[in-house]
């Protein structure tokens, strides 16, 4: 890459392309980062939060504090009731499909990081269709299309073609790709996509710079505003998440919750969901791990999200083991992936590129369905009409 055309690790061309929108959501969210001393919360603060129907930011922080940990069971009991009231016993099913893993970002925690020597690849339209067909045969109606971040290898028209193809096989199409401008989101919405997830990873702007060493992802605010641009582009729903274990998980979870809350206030019709990725080992870094976010803390975060925003969806990915996933669906999670491959392709064809991370649950769609049934939960293949 020509370093002369770089500004603070981001190519000038990329920077100039980035749309800047007028929004106070980031300011409002970040104002609460470091606001609380989590160690100072008391059991009484947690108890008070558990009694309330509408949680304040203080209550939400209390549920994320160490003081809430001994009250996890009580919290879970209430969260289960809230989940049932909002979603009944319905659990949505989906699967991700990585269509490319080229990436120009250097993120120190990620297997796709441009400095990591892995097999790179992207699927042709014929290959994508073969994958879609194989996935659709399992009964799934919702697909999540993923790429690494490379505007040259996986440009908008390539993703658009994939979405257009997906429309033939699925009722619901989500995207987990690099952040786009409003008009680009509008283009992909027009092609048939309706949901967009972008994870901020950490909401601490200074720390963010130390783990995103180069590439467009280094631009914190462009990434932060992606959900708003997606909604402005006509998308129906957006996903939010912090990468747990990367930094200070209590502050990051708090910020992710507030990001969601402020977005919903500004766009009341938007469907909002959380993902709760924890760091995982990947090719050439088998030691990557979620640090201080053990299952207890992960559940604590998920329950706090449920209490703070009872209407929000919570996804549980194959980063977690089967035993954990099985117990959080219906308790707080509302969507679960099945038949997952995180390499490029792999459903029908041989994988054309290495995986982003190692998965912990390789069960097929059939197996996940059987698990849901055994737990008295209702599988939901489609909950959306594309209009």
């Amino acid at each position, binding site marked *: 890459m020509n370093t002369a055309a770089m500004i603070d690790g981001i190519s000038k061309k990329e920077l100039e392309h980035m749309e800047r929108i007028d929004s106070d959501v980031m300011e409002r969210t970040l104002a609460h980062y470091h606001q609380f001393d989590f160690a100072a919360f008391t059991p009484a603060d947690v108890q008070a939060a558990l009694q309330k129907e509408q949680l304040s930011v203080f209550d939400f922080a209390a549920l994320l504090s160490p003081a809430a940990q001994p009250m996890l069971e009580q919290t879970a009991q209430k969260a289960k009731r809230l989940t049932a*009231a909002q979603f*009944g016993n319905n659990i949505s099913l989906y699967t991700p499909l990585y269509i490319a893993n080229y990436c120009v970002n250097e993120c120190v925690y990620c297997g796709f990081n441009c400095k990591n020597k892995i097999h790179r690849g992207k699927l042709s339209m014929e290959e994508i269709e073969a994958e879609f067909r194989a996935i659709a045969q399992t009964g799934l109606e919702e697909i999540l299309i993923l790429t690494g971040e490379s505007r040259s290898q996986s440009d908008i028209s390539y993703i658009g073609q994939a979405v257009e193809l997906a429309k033939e096989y699925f009722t619901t199409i989500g995207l987990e790709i690099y952040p786009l401008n409003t008009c680009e989101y509008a283009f992909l919405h027009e092609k048939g996509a309706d949901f967009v997830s972008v994870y901020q990873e950490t909401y601490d702007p200074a720390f963010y710079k130390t783990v995103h060493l180069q590439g467009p992802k280094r631009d914190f605010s462009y990434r932060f505003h992606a959900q708003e641009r997606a909604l402005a582009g006509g998308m129906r729903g957006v996903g939010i998440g912090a990468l747990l274990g990367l930094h200070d998980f209590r502050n990051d979870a708090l910020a992710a919750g507030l990001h969601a809350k402020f977005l919903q206030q500004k766009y009341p*019709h938007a469907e909002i969901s959380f993902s709760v990725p924890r760091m995982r080992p990947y090719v050439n870094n088998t030691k990557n791990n979620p640090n201080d976010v053990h299952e207890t803390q992960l559940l604590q975060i998920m329950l706090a999200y449920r209490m703070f925003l009872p*209407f929000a969806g919570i996804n549980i990915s194959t980063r977690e083991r089967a035993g954990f996933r099985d117990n959080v669906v219906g308790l707080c999670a509302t969507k679960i992936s099945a038949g997952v491959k995180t390499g490029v392709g792999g459903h029908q064809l041989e994988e054309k590129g290495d995986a982003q991370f190692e998965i912990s649950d390789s069960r097929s769609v059939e197996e996940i369905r059987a698990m849901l049934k055994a737990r008295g939960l*209702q599988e939901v*293949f*489609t909950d959306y009409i594309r209009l």
Partner: protein
Amino acid sequence: MKDTLMIGGHAFHSRFILGSGKYSLEKMPGVIENSGAQIITLALRRANTNGQGNILDYLPRGITLLPNTSGARNAEEAVRIARLSRELGCGDFVKIEVIRDSKYLMPDNHETVKATEILAKEGFIVMPYVYPDLITARALVNAGAAAVMPLAAPIGSNKGLVAREFIKMLVDEIDLPVIVDAGIGAPSQACEAMELGVDAVMANTAVATAKDVAAMAKAFKLAIEAGRAAYLAGLGRVLDFTGEASSPLTGFLED
């Protein structure tokens, strides 16, 4: 005389409208049987018409489907979903749900009136879900609605007849069936709504989240029947009047 509920020219003897969301599809036949319901609502967006777990496969014959337009954010989307529902063979009944708020799921009355007007003209039997507002209800009558479905409390909240006074206005002033929809959390609350004079009650969450879904469906059926019987028996006299004086207050008149 037989106590019949007329909606859009169709006669029903059950006054319990049952929702089909939030519980397992396989339980549905038993729940419907216990409820005695003749009208079942379903979210068209959930009907996996091409694949597995299609709710339509679980509904017994003879049931009147009331597809709803959930997912619609404005009148235009509601109209498109309703037309799609008809194309899929779900009949002419449609429950209009236009929701632009993902937190409280409050219906947009204004857009609902617009959708009602369009769909009524196309021959649909339109049952709009609204916030209980008398002015909106009058507009719905003019728009050709077949019933008005006011919420009793926020949907899924199980809080009961929070909007009691405003629903009472609709009962008193609107000549269409008034069907309480959303917020009813217990059979006692359904009974209370029926005593008030509403024509039917719709419930979903309260039934779906019960420990024994089928048994709760039965409890609702009985409560709704009891409330209706009380209303017909003239309960209103007891509630509205404190009693009649034994010495008439107007006995002094000499004409």
